[in-house]
């Protein structure tokens, strides 16, 4: 019994018991359902072992939506708890766990997965490639992310959630002040999914650099692909920093080392420093793909080419460099003095310049255009004003002396939500609506889509604008309650009302998906939006080889030229296409990593050793494996193309 005692949650409440029941019921339902409909084989052959970038993208998408739900429920609970003074809906401990998991889930497991989803789906199509450079590694990336996310989420019902904030500052996150295994989960889950992210970074840089369609020089790439290239560059150089920081944190917690302790020469500030050396570039990892998506959508629905293509690219490169030079602004108040703070203030505010360039370029893309208000376009247009508010408050936060007053307050919370929600979440939803027909061959309902937009856009403002005020009035963040005399009550109540509006907006999106699956017409053209880049030049849904003939490109908007100027995209004739084989190893390896992580969380060293050997065995297997892929014959291509409504010339 002693062995199992460690898995108990330290302070269980009704929410935890309810989650346990819900998880158990869902698992049973999935299991029974798969068995009853005899779908195990289908699931294994078509999804769990797939190396197809489009399917991996869709799996990322499903996971991201699940995580959005989890993080959203956390958010609602937090807003409900603080809606009135002295509320007793949640206890301090529950509240602390909830805001910690809200942060981690939303950033690492929702937003990251969402950008991975859209990148995986769209980038190879946009550059006219058959797949990514390393399809097998791509599957491994997904399964590492997925099992990392699962490991993090089971902490809620097994052993206890992390409770020291998403930034997990030591020594609060050390063994002395966080005795439960929660922070172990944090360290290991982030490590595993971070490894997956790093692999994706390498994979996509190689893909974009080496696998572009003939004629597509770097300066002729679609803007989303450019943003993906820059993003992955940041990933490759930022994630190793997190890897090291997490490793040190794990060793402090499991092996009693003194990296971040306050005795024996440890330095708690080092964690904060390293966390933000990674953490700030991470913000740009999230926002740059979003900028790419907006560039595509705004140009498509203004019926105009993107204004200032070159300066768009240059500003992204500038952002990628600057993103590594500003991290200290996350802890101006740590006492490092006026000189250091002045330097990092200036670099921080400098980022506003390239960002401003992008905003003006988008505005001038709209100018002289013919603006069509589709759902993806509405989100993109909603993004500009709200993000501007978030952006200018960011400049305000960048001023060190003033930051001494904003730091750790609701003002900061308002700022970063008003950057991340219009910046990232709007872009993800816009991208979802935009590429949905290409993914699934039917469109999402526009009426419901517009309703959800208005709900979300207005509610974002209602939720987060009051926080600027309560922040300036002295409300610190992460307080589970406050007394009535502070006068914060009214602002938090307004926030809660806004949060309900957000929840309704997201529920409408889910309903939209359900509604559209049932009622939407399947008879849609391959290019329903009258778009401009290559992914719209192939069928919907996309055949596994993407393009029957590799397109040849001559401008930034080859597909537009094909439609308007009669440019010939597909020259030559069908040839056998080489494709990679499916493999179950990435899935198994992810599973072994999950066991490995779980064993480390609880310090069960025998299992840890066995799992480590398992990982090594997977690697060795890969080393010796002979797998040359397979060929799709010309007859097969002809048949597929015919079934999909006639070959493209």
């Amino acid at each position, binding site marked *: 019994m002693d062995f199992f005692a460690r898995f108990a949650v330290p302070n269980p409440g009704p929410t935890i018991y309810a989650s346990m029941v819900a998880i158990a019921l869902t698992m049973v339902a999935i299991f029974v359902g798969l068995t009853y409909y005899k779908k195990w084989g289908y699931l294994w052959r078509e999804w769990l072992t797939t190396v197809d970038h489009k399917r991996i993208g869709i799996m990322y998408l499903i996971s991201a939506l699940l995580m959005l739900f989890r993080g959203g429920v956390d958010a609602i609970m937090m807003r409900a708890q603080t809606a009135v003074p002295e509320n007793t809906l949640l206890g*301090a401990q529950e509240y*602390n766990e909830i805001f910690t998991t809200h942060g981690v889930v939303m950033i690492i497991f929702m937003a990251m997965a969402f950008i991975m989803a859209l990148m995986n789906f769209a980038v190879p199509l946009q550059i006219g490639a058959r797949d990514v450079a390393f399809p097998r590694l791509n599957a491994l990336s997904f399964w590492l992310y997925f099992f990392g996310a699962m490991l993090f989420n089971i902490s809620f019902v097994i052993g206890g959630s992390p*409770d*020291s904030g998403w930034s997990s*500052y030591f*020594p609060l996150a050390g063994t002395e002040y966080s005795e439960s295994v929660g922070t172990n989960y944090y360290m290991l889950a982030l490590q595993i999914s971070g490894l997956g992210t790093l692999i994706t970074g390498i994979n996509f840089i190689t893909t974009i650099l080496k696998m572009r369609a003939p004629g597509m020089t770097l300066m002729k790439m679609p803007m989303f692909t450019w943003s993906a290239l820059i993003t992955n560059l940041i990933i490759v150089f930022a994630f190793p920093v997190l890897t090291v920081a997490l490793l040190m944190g794990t060793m402090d917690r499991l092996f009693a080392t003194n990296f971040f302790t*306050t005795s024996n020469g440890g330095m*708690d*500030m080092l964690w*904060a420093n390293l966390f933000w050396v990674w953490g700030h570039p991470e913000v740009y990892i999230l926002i740059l793909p979003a900028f790419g998506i907006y560039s595509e959508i705004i140009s498509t629905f203004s*019926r*105009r*080419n993107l*204004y*200032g293509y070159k*300066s768009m690219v240059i500003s992204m490169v500038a952002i990628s460099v600057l993103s590594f030079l500003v991290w200290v602004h996350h*802890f101006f*108040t*740590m*006492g490092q*003095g*006026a000189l250091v*703070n*002045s330097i990092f*203030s*200036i670099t921080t*505010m*400098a980022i*506003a310049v390239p960002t401003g*360039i992008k905003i003006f370029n988008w*505005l*001038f893309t*709209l100018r002289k*255009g013919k*603006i069509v208000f589709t759902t993806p376009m509405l989100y993109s247009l*909603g993004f500009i*004003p*709200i993000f501007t*508010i978030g952006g*200018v*408050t960011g*400049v*305000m936060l960048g001023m*060190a*002396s003033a930051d*001494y*007053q904003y*730091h*750790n*307050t609701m003002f900061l919370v308002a700022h970063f939500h008003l950057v991340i929600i219009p910046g990232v979440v709007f872009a993800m939803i816009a991208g979802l609506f935009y590429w949905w027909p290409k993914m699934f061959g039917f469109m999402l309902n526009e009426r419901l889509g517009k309703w959800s937009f208005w709900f979300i856009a*207005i509610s974002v*403002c209602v939720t987060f*604008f009051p926080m*600027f*005020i309560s922040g*300036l009035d*002295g409300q*610190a963040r*992460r*307080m589970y309650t406050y007394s009535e005399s502070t006068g914060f009550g009214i602002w938090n109540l307004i926030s809660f009302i806004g949060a309900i509006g957000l929840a309704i907006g997201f529920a409408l999106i889910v309903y939209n998906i359900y509604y559209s699956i049932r009622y939407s017409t399947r008879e849609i053209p391959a290019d329903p939006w009258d778009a401009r880049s290559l992914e719209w030049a192939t069928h919907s849904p996309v055949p596994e080889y993407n393009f029957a003939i590799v397109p040849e490109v001559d401008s930034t908007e080859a597909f537009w030229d094909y439609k308007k100027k009669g440019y010939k995209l597909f020259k030559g004739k069908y040839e056998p296409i080489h494709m990679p084989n499916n493999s179950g190893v990435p899935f198994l390896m992810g599973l072994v990593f999950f066991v490995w992580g779980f064993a480390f969380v609880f310090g069960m060293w025998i299992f840890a050793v066995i799992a480590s050997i398992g990982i090594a065995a997977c690697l060795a297997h890969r080393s010796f494996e002979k797998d040359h892929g397979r060929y799709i014959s010309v007859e097969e291509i002809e048949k597929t193309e015919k079934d999909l409504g006639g070959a493209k010339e």
Partner: protein
Amino acid sequence: MKIKWALLTLIFTIATVLTGCEPLLVLDPKGPQGRTTADVIMISIWTMAIVVVVVFALYIFIVRKYRASNQSEDYEPPHIEGSLKLEIVWTAIPVLIVAFLSVVTVVSTYKVEATPEGYNEEPLVIYASSSNWKWHFSYPEQNIETVNYLFIPTDRPIEFKLYSYGPISSFWIPQLGGQKYAMADMVNTLNLAADVPGEYSGRNANFTGEGFAQQTFNVKAMPQKEFDEWVKEINATAEPLTEDKFEELLKPGHLGQSTYTGTHLTFSPPPEGHHEKGDSGNEEVQPGSSKKEQDEEVDHSKMNH
């Protein structure tokens, strides 16, 4: 379209509230440091308001004018690569704005980090240490110690020495000035001053676990004379702070306010010496001196404490 009006209304509401009847704590400063930060905040708000107005005006104009329903059926939007001139304009103007704000930032940051000027008296040194989830204030000069409340004289600079008996905390009195971290392995200095007698609220602003929300303290600023009387009275009436008593106070939990004579600094000194260990990394800044001299310097600085 609705959203823009909603946004504008909200911005005006905020502007009204910021300047309006019920001042927000941060914008209602009661000392020179707080006034500096409040001024910086207002300067930045107005500068940024100009940016927001320009962007919004441009945005509303463009989106209204170029919407498809406002165009003829056969209008074909032109292909425009960009305009070097315009792009230089919207690079240069933000650069100027950032340069202006940089100057404001650097000047004000040095100002709030330094001892406030214009006072004749020497700064009053108060050691403020946090423990889960309390604040301990030691007045070495007056030889008294308080828990969870702070009395300070007005019109005199106060030099807070911040450190922690637990996780990283952040010492913050919004009406007097910005916050700074209190950490376990070093002492940070925070310079504040109050000009106006009155009661202000202070708190720990950095998350420290379960009892974080209630880790607050009260600040009472009063003329020097009253302060001296208070010190005298405490010295006459309060019990001495023993080591055992202090150990008891440190235990995690919440406490009310209490007062003692003597300070814990005598038996539980602040971690000032520790940071010297880190400081000897200075050999990378001043590489001129040899190893031996470095060691001597370290010893020397240790003797100072």
